């Protein structure tokens, strides 16, 4: 596969050449040659970020937007991943049928989730796996701790699991004196940096290689100034191999669990889940209850979709099927609810439980690409995080459904056909109705109304500017707007936003 982009895919970057140790990011430039944003009414302006109790998406995005070259780079890199997804999808003639089938399998799962959970528990138990049930994050964390305590173990390796991020397992275990090493390279990078992942598939996508070189220099003792991806990856390989060989407990996530056979599947490119699980005496797998699928043959559909949607690869390097513990090993599965069973009851929003965490909606989202994962202040960022998080805590995440242009690109790429942008729109209504919209967000709604009633303003700004003005007045407030330089906008919606809004306005 060769991208038209200059970023190498098949050939790793070898040398740093004459690059400087650390990039000099320019000061953000103000763009003043556009619509006069000062003309916005007072209520449309957001309160200052630092005057807020907690920073919301708008404020955090504004922070990210201060470093304009980095924003451009972040944007382009993710767009490049999105393009790889497009190419991979185009090579499968039955792609749309696959999406439709996957979506319908998930419809069936959601309609009989309690039955499939029981069946899975029974089969997994028969296979010699211990099944645990956790009503919430805390119970999940306590279960993991109790397994560790029983074995008197205070060190563990962990492969990528967004669920454990959602449950804040690392922080919990750290407080109890347990040392957790994240073994996915990107996750290890952010763990060493003391940050959460900013993307569910590419956890350190917000960091430049020079910064990763610095982090490795500080924590792993690699030579200062060496930012060669191949060299740094090899350093991490050696560092983590020692961890794999000395840890007796490994925790992994779960991509799919099969009710029919009681097995679960973990997909990685690095092989870190397998290295951890097969060398450990105890394997703990944490999964959200929505990860179930009815039959093993359904994996054929999901494995064809997952990685093509995520990175454009035809499949991950490893798709490992765990059915029984190996001889002498203990295997545990923790089934975690943490709000999912309640979410299932929300008719308008339950479809978001179909998500297979491919992150295609992140990579295509113009807001995500230009605001960065950390601006969502939640474990699962991006469009899907913006519809899952308000279910967990409507007040805390009331800002997220507003972090969208409602362009619909997310719904277009979603391999399980979740109506993401429609749910974002519906959440806005719910949040406002329930009185959770913060002053700033009420302002966003008012801005929308105001802008829509002033067609002159939003039409002159052009297509991209129009979206931006509508939904992201934080940059308007800042007086600069890198959005306008957007080169790769997603497919424009079939109808203009104004039409869509009018049609959907009750």
């Amino acid at each position: 596969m060769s991208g038209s982009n200059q970023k190498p895919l098949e050939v790793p970057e070898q040398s740093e050449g004459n690059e400087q140790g650390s990039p000099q990011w320019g000061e953000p430039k103000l763009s003043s040659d556009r619509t006069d944003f000062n003309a916005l009414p007072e209520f449309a302006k957001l309160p200052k970020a630092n005057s807020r109790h907690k920073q919301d998406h708008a404020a955090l995005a504004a922070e990210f937007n201060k470093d304009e070259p980095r924003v451009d780079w972040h944007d382009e890199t993710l767009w490049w991943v999105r393009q790889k997804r497009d190419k991979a999808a185009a090579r499968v003639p039955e792609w749309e049928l696959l999406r439709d089938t996957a979506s319908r399998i998930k419809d069936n799962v959601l309609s009989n989730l309690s039955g499939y959970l029981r069946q899975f528990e029974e089969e997994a138990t028969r296979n010699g796996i211990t099944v645990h049930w956790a009503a919430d994050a805390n119970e999940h964390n306590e279960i993991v701790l109790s397994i560790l305590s029983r074995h008197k173990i205070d060190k563990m390796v962990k492969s990528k699991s967004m669920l454990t991020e959602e449950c804040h397992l690392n922080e919990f275990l750290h407080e109890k004196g347990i040392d957790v090493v994240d073994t996915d390279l990107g996750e290890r990078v952010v763990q060493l940096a003391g940050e959460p992942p900013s993307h569910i598939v590419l956890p350190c996508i917000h960091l430049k290689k020079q910064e990763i070189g610095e982090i490795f220099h500080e924590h792993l003792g690699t030579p200062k100034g060496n930012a060669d991806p191949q060299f740094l990856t090899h350093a991490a390989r050696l560092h983590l191999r020692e961890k794999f060989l000395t840890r007796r407990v490994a925790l992994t996530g779960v991509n799919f669990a099969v009710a029919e056979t009681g097995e679960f599947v973990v997909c990685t490119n690095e092989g870190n889940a397998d290295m951890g699980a097969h060398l450990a005496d105890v394997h703990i797998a944490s999964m959200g209850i929505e990860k179930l699928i009815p039959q093993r043959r359904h994996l054929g559909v999901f494995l064809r979709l997952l990685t093509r949607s995520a990175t454009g690869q035809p499949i991950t390097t490893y798709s490992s099927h765990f059915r029984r513990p190996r001889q002498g090993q203990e295997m545990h599965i923790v089934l975690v609810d943490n709000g999912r069973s309640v979410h299932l009851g929300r008719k308008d929003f339950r479809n978001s439980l179909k998500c297979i965490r491919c992150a295609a909606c992140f990579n295509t989202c113009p807001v995500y690409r230009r605001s960065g994962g950390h601006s969502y202040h939640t474990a699962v960022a991006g469009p899907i995080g913006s519809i899952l998080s308000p279910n967990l805590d409507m007040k805390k995440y009331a800002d997220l459904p507003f972090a969208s242009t409602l362009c619909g690109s997310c719904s277009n790429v979603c391999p399980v056909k979740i109506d993401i942008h429609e749910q974002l729109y519906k959440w806005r209504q719910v949040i406002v109705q329930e009185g959770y919209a913060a002053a700033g967000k009420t302002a966003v709604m008012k801005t929308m109304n105001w802008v829509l009633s002033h067609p002159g303003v939003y039409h002159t700004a052009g297509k991209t500017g129009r979206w931006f003005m509508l939904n992201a007045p934080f940059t308007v407030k800042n007086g600069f707007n890198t959005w306008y330089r957007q080169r790769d906008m997603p497919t424009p919606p079939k109808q203009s936003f104004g039409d869509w809004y009018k049609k959907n306005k009750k």
Partner: protein
Amino acid sequence: MNESSNTATRNSRDKILNTVHGNQPAPRELPPLPEGTPVAPGDLAPTFITALEAIGATAYIVSGFDRIATMLHEQFPGARRIVTGCPQLNAFAEAAAAAKGLDPHLLENVELAILPAHFGVAENGACWITETQMVERALPFIAQRLVLVIPHSSIVPNMHAAYDRIAALEAEAPANTYGFSTFIAGPSKTADIEQSLVLGAHGPISLTVFLLDEELSDAGYF
């Protein structure tokens, strides 16, 4: 786990199942599964090899294990510890019997693992390998380099056919009912640092797949 946390888990179980049951929508039928675009039998191996090469692996069509042994000698001249799950290569490597049941940590210095796999998948270059073929579960991951041997006639067009084959294998022989199994597609890799692809993340840094075709004449392969 002590009694009390057991009880707590059981309470959560019932609570979760009840809430799920109360909130799940009306029954929805399972859809029929697609079969995928057909691939002509003659195109299966070439498509598989093309897919493998695109994901950073190497493939050879060979006539037999003698040929494999010769090629491995040529390609991995310096390999110090070689473990194989193919009895035909026992003279060339440490046999499965010796490595089986070992503490998997002792496989840490294996430089080359040569293992049989059941079949390959044309659309993505993946090979299906079950626990019994792996010698130890850790071996295909911990070895520095991995070689897989599959029958040339075993290639299936896509993942739908792959799961049909897996079910057929299990029906054929109970030994094929795995406790652990995996699809391996290429060498271990990562692109976590600025999307630059690097081969050899935690697992093998290279993958070679031999497609064994006993009907093949060696003529033309020297």
